[in-house]
């Protein structure tokens, strides 16, 4: 179990990590999700012991390991760049951490072959990394990390330098590989889609702070605040600030959006409403859906789906619909907001939920 207790890291006058507390269990996959410079790499360096926190402590299985250098802990890292020993074969690359640890030859061989099989590298064991494709090079680095039998494996955007399709393939395999290894995995990414595909737990980062940590799908569906919701949305989250009056949020042009039944009790005032692009639709999804008129700025078609960018009042929304729906720029269309799928945030950006209301 890896525990960060109120960890802060300041470099010069800049706070890279602000008061992070986090507990990661053995055998878990944990995604750090956030944009560039949100602190993902800094946090990983603190976990690994490459950096020492300015304040707070790092605990591993009940021992304080704050400041224990990385060499003394069983840690493996995989980076965005494909880092292998170029002069060694794939076999020797995978075997290298075992050789350092002085494992006996027979055991090395069986472990290397096992890891190679898991990562589909068996045919390439005698090749050198540079003669392989990017995907295979990164598989080699992953195999080396796994064979090391580390207690903590850190992956810093490991798929970012791969082609889209290779990324997709490896991403589908990773959860299986992680499950087989049974250690603590920490995986940094900028892509919400990647977090969802990997599953496990997700911690969303924003400006050096962890905004939420929990099972990935829960964080996605029930963000605790607006920052988390925005971090975890691709396409971007649609938002609008509305005034609540009685049982309705007031929209432009006298349109009313009913406040979800469980939230009717909240005080009148301004709230930010957020909803996912696929919850905005061209056809009425149900009787309770509210039609609004918006102006099309641009339409993007992927072949099976269409992304329609809309201007409504002073905000820009994206609508995701199935099929090919092309509109002229500046066309005015009627779109439906489904009140069952809206998220409500108060003026501080905190999510307003029925549970919170009850508390």
């Amino acid at each position: 179990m890896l525990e960060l207790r109120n960890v802060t890291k300041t470099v010069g006058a800049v706070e890279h990590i602000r008061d992070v507390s986090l507990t990661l269990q053995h055998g878990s996959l944990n995604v750090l999700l956030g944009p560039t410079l949100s602190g993902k790499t800094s946090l990983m360096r603190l976990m690994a012991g490459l950096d020492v926190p300015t304040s707070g402590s790092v605990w591993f299985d009940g021992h304080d390991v704050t400041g224990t250098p990385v060499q003394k802990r069983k840690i493996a890292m995989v980076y965005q760049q494909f880092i292998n020993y170029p002069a060694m074969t794939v076999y020797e690359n995978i075997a290298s951490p075992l050789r350092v640890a002085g494992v006996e030859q027979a055991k090395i061989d069986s472990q290397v072959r096992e890891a190679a099989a898991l990562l589909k590298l068996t045919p390439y064991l005698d090749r050198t990394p540079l003669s392989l494709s990017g995907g295979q090079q990164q598989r080699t680095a992953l195999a080396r990390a796994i064979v090391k039998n580390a207690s903590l494996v850190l992956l810093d955007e490991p798929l970012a330098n791969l082609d889209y399709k290779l990324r997709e393939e490896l991403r589908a395999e990773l959860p299986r590989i992680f499950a087989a290894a049974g250690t603590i995995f920490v995986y940094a990414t900028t892509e919400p889609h990647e977090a969802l595909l990997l599953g496990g737990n997700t911690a969303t980062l924003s400006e050096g702070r962890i905004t939420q940590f929990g099972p990935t799908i829960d964080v996605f569906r029930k963000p605790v605040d607006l920052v988390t919701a925005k971090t975890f949305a691709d396409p971007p989250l649609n938002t609008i600030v509305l005034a609540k009056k009685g049982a309705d949020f007031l929209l432009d042009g006298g349109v009313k959006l009913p406040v979800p039944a469980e939230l009717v009790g909240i005080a009148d005032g301004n709230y930010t409403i957020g909803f996912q692009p696929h919850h905005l639709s061209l056809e009425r999804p149900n009787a309770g859906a509210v039609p609004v008129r918006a102006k099309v700025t641009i339409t993007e078609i992927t072949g099976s789906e269409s992304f329609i960018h809309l201007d409504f009042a002073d905000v820009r929304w994206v609508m995701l619909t199935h099929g090919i729906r092309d509109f002229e720029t500046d066309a005015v269309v009627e779109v439906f907001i489904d009140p069952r799928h809206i998220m409500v945030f108060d003026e501080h950006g905190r999510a307003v939920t029925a549970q919170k209301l009850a508390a």
Partner: protein
Amino acid sequence: MDKTWNNKAWFLVLPVLVLVAFTAVIPLMTVVNYSVQDTFGNNVFTWAGTEWFEELLSSSRFWEAMVRNLIFSFIILAIEVPLGIFIALNMPKKGWGVPVCLVLMSLPLLIPWNVVGTIWQVFGRSDIGLMGYYLNAIGIDYNYVQDPFDAWVTIIIMDVWHWTSLVVLLCYAGLVSIPDAFYQAAKIDGASRWAVFRYIQLPKMQRVLLIAVLLRFMDSFMIYTEPFVVTGGGPGNSTTFLSIDLVKTALGQFDLGPAAAMSLVYFLIILLLSWVFYTVMTNYDAER
């Protein structure tokens, strides 16, 4: 909480600290001690206070040497930096030419100072030297032993020959780190050769140039061995730099007190000038 880590770290740097203490700190203390006393190297010391410093700062010999140093540093920087950039720009960026050029460039840097001095001393001699002899043969009156101007030219050419490579190698390292896309974009933008240099290559070389200028300045300001070997500070005092003057005072005349004062002042001047150089250049860098 991170005590263990820190103790280990100190343990590891201890040998270096000891080494630095013996090679720098202790000698420096000795020099400070000498500079305020009068002695002839016979272990008889009398307190002199600031006498040596006063004497030094009012001596024209010191200031003349100092001016010579500054002129020398200025000239060699003015030659070596542009020349180094020029050579680096024209070196091949890929293919078999790269290792060949790199080795050729490194050669002068590998030769010890006194050997360089000896080479040029012989090379420039007007009776047997390859350069000196032929220069005189084609009618150029060249003799570095007699003519101060010729002596200066010889030392400057020698330094340029010896050290331009350093500037070249540093600049080259900066240049090869520029991605191809920059050159391609410049082509598309219709940039001239000069514009490519001014807006792409020079900015990318700026950091290494700062290091090159600093190194070359400090080195040239402290130059000793080569002029000592070639001209011995002459003819007259025309190539007597601070370092040569210092050695003459300390070892030639055994004036340890004045020599210690002089080396302290010399040390502070180098420190000060390097600091000024560094601050000016890094500020310039930060502004842009």
